[in-house]
């Protein structure tokens, strides 16, 4: 019981222990004397500690801490948010990333050049594909000859084809010959200066 006296003096025992010690002290003169000694000892020690001069070092810390960097602030902000909020932010971020990926891949996936593609310098060939030819097959043909669609389709289904640079007569002839051998192509001819 006497081992509890230092904390009884400070009043930091649990209520149950405080009561137990109090009842014991009523019957034990030795412990009452010890309690007196401990009280004086505690008061002296508190006085000693209060007398310890404390240096003011906040100025030293100011220089070192400065303002928290953006990463520390971000960590603190994240740590202060509730878990549900963070899950929501994570899901939204993931969704944005998925959408961005889809948009990016649609822009840079298959090379689909619109009719007004700025890369093509004028139409030099006109071609008509058979009715049942699929778009993929048309693209394959165009890739083989290095052409892109720059106009059409007309009501008759004719497409004007252009090239990355104006082709010479001989080059055009070779392209036309190649087009005409393709089963997908119904008709191919020069269309003059584009």
């Amino acid at each position, binding site marked *: 019981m006497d081992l509890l006296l*230092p904390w009884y003096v*400070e009043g*930091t025992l649990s209520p149950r222990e405080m009561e137990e010690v109090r009842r014991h002290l009523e019957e034990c003169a030795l412990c009452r004397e010890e309690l007196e000694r401990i009280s004086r000892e*505690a008061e002296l020690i508190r*006085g000693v500690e209060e*007398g310890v001069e404390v*240096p003011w070092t906040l100025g030293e810390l100011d220089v070192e*801490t400065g303002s928290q960097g953006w990463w*520390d602030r971000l960590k*603190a902000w994240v740590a202060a948010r509730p878990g549900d909020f963070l899950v929501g932010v994570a899901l939204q971020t993931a969704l944005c990333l998925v959408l961005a990926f889809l948009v990016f891949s649609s822009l840079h996936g298959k090379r689909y050049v619109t009719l007004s593609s700025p890369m093509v310098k004028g139409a030099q060939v006109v071609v008509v594909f058979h009715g049942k030819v699929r778009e993929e097959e048309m693209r394959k043909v165009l890739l083989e000859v290095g052409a892109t669609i720059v106009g059409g389709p007309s009501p008759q289904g004719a497409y004007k084809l252009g090239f990355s640079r104006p082709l010479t007569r001989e080059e055009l002839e070779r392209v036309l010959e190649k087009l005409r051998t393709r089963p997908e192509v119904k008709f191919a001819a020069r269309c003059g200066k584009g």
Partner: protein
Amino acid sequence: MESGRHLELIRRIGAGDKKAFEVLYGDIYPRVYRYLRRVLGDPEMARELGNEVMMEVWRGAGSFRGEARVLTWIWGIARKKVWRFLRGAEREFSELEEWDGAHEDYSPHHMAQIQDLKEKMAWALGRLSPKHREVLHLAYYQGLSLEEMSSLLDVPVNTVKTRMFYARKKLGEVLKKMGVVEHG
């Protein structure tokens, strides 16, 4: 409620509020410094470690979740630092627990120079080992309960009680040698 106020300060410090840090510093630092000074017995080292403790409070405030009281958390930081520093010296100091003080100057001449009872107590405390100084300081000055001390020191409650018993016993022996008979 004091712990609520400290919690609010920690939350603001976690968001980078330097003013809140200054307020907490004013509240906490004197207690932290005095603890370090008492255990280390060296004012310069106490100052250095005290700064390290406050820096760790500044950096760690953002991730403090409030599982413990703010003061308990800060004591944990301070204690870890001070005992890491003392680890090498701990063996030396534990030997001092057996030492009878033959090399200390308890002569009447020297003792007469220490007039004030408080000064005598301060001198006597300096003759104890860091573990004994620590337990007396935490109980009498910082007002920690048995359970808090048990948790902070990471020892069972009974160990705290016996450590306090031996600390007081040793203190009494030193004061008796100094001629301060009250604690005989």
